[in-house]
């Protein structure tokens, strides 16, 4: 969708005015003053009231505000966990500064999904300031989650790599699987990262017959709980190398540089094996991190870089019923091309990935 015109971004619709939220005066949420003069009217303007959701949204939506303020979308705590786990407490202030300059702009408030589209697609109202209960996929979800998940799901990585079957055939959007309650859920009790929480959504949430009595696909019974579903049912997906962040000496604006972006399919050993994710083999992708990613903010800020794998547990969003690796036993077993072997890992990252690298290809 083409970016909205400046006037279009702030044009309020008649439908909003007759909605329940439209019965509340503009100034109640946005401040400012009643005046025909633009400058005067915008004195003390609060452009994003839901940044303080407790004050503006919780009056009517207390439950969802209370939990969503602790959700990953709101806190972005996964970033901090990732940064801190490779560092030491003395470096946290410098990493916090980097986080504030480069990562925190992805923070989402209520209005960022339900009223406006993110700046990455030009900003502006989704629909004339109407409160959209279900955020539209391409104008909100994949506007932020685009380069990996969005491109995979919609089949934008390559003409040879189809989009996810749930999109192509079933025409499902993000919230078909990622329910509102899950998206608004607090992450405080689940380790503050995406993959330490329970598997929600899980494939079996819909496909309960997989591996159950009566399942006619023998491979399901043989591989279940040993192999993550995506190992057999996803195809090439993207990986990135490094994400070096700096503040521009020319403009004073934060910017990033990623070293490489490439497509591939890699089966690794599960670096986060748990009762919830018991699989021995999972799909892994290289995440945009390197020892010098935050060097602009200080020397050696990630002294424990080798404690966390750079090839991370991944859930590619390009599920197919039929894939090259599930055509036959031999298509996968003994096929070293599919596995993250030592030769595919940078020498300086071998220690970090020692628990992920597959040393012996399953025969």
């Amino acid at each position, binding site marked *: 969708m083409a970016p909205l015109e*400046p*006037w279009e971004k*702030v*044009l*309020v*619709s*008649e439908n909003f*005015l007759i909605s329940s939220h439209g*019965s*509340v*005066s*503009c*100034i*109640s949420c*946005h401040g*400012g003053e*009643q*005046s*025909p003069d*633009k400058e005067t*009217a915008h004195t003390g303007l609060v452009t994003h009231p839901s940044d303080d959701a407790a004050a503006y949204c919780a*009056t*009517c939506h207390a439950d969802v505000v209370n939990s969503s303020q602790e959700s990953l979308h709101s806190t972005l705590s996964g970033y901090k966990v990732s940064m801190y786990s490779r560092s030491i407490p003395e470096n946290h202030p410098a990493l916090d500064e980097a986080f504030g300059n480069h990562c925190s702009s992805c923070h989402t408030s209520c209005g960022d999904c339900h009223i406006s589209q993110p700046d990455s697609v030009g900003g502006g109202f989704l629909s004339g*300031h109407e409160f959209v209960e279900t955020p539209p996929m391409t104008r909100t979800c994949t506007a932020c989650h685009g*380069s990996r998940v969005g491109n995979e799901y919609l089949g934008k990585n390559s003409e040879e790599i189809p989009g996810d079957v749930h999109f192509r055939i079933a025409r499902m959007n993000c919230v078909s699987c990622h329910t509102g309650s899950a998206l608004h859920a607090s992450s405080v009790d689940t380790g503050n990262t995406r993959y330490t929480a329970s598997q929600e959504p899980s494939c079996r949430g819909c496909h309960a017959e997989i591996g159950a009595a009566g399942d006619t696909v023998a491979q399901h019974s043989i591989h279940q709980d040993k192999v993550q579903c995506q190992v057999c049912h996803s195809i090439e997906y*993207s990986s*990135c190398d490094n*994400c070096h962040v700096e503040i*521009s000496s*020319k*403009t004073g*604006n934060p*910017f*990033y*540089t*990623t*070293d*490489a*972006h490439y497509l591939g399919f890699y089966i690794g050993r599960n670096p986060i094996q748990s009762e919830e994710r018991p699989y021995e083999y999972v799909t892994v992708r290289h995440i945009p991190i390197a020892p010098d990613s935050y060097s602009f903010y200080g020397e050696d800020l990630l002294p424990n870089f080798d404690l966390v794998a750079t090839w991370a547990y991944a859930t590619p969003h390009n599920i197919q019923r039929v894939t090259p690796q599930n055509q036959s036993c031999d298509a996968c077993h003994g096929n070293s091309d599919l596995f993250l072997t030592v030769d595919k890992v940078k020498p300086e990252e071998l220690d970090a990935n020692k628990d992920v690298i597959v040393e012996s290809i399953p025969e």
Partner: protein
Amino acid sequence: MRRSIFIPMMITLCILAACSPASVPVDDKEAEGQPASSATGVVISESSTVDQCVECHTDKSKLIDTAKPEEVVVKESEGTG
């Protein structure tokens, strides 16, 4: 005969009177012509009052006339974000 009709009629009138709405106190603010407060404390705008915010933000031509040109942001980032 007349008495037998009169008594049930009086009883019916008493029941109907009991069902009628109680007198509703007028909101002091409404009486003074100020916006009424909702149960949540958020100020509800009166339909009869001209809301300057709505006046402008529902008028495409006014928004076009008063829009500031958008700053062209120099893209300094490189690679896939």
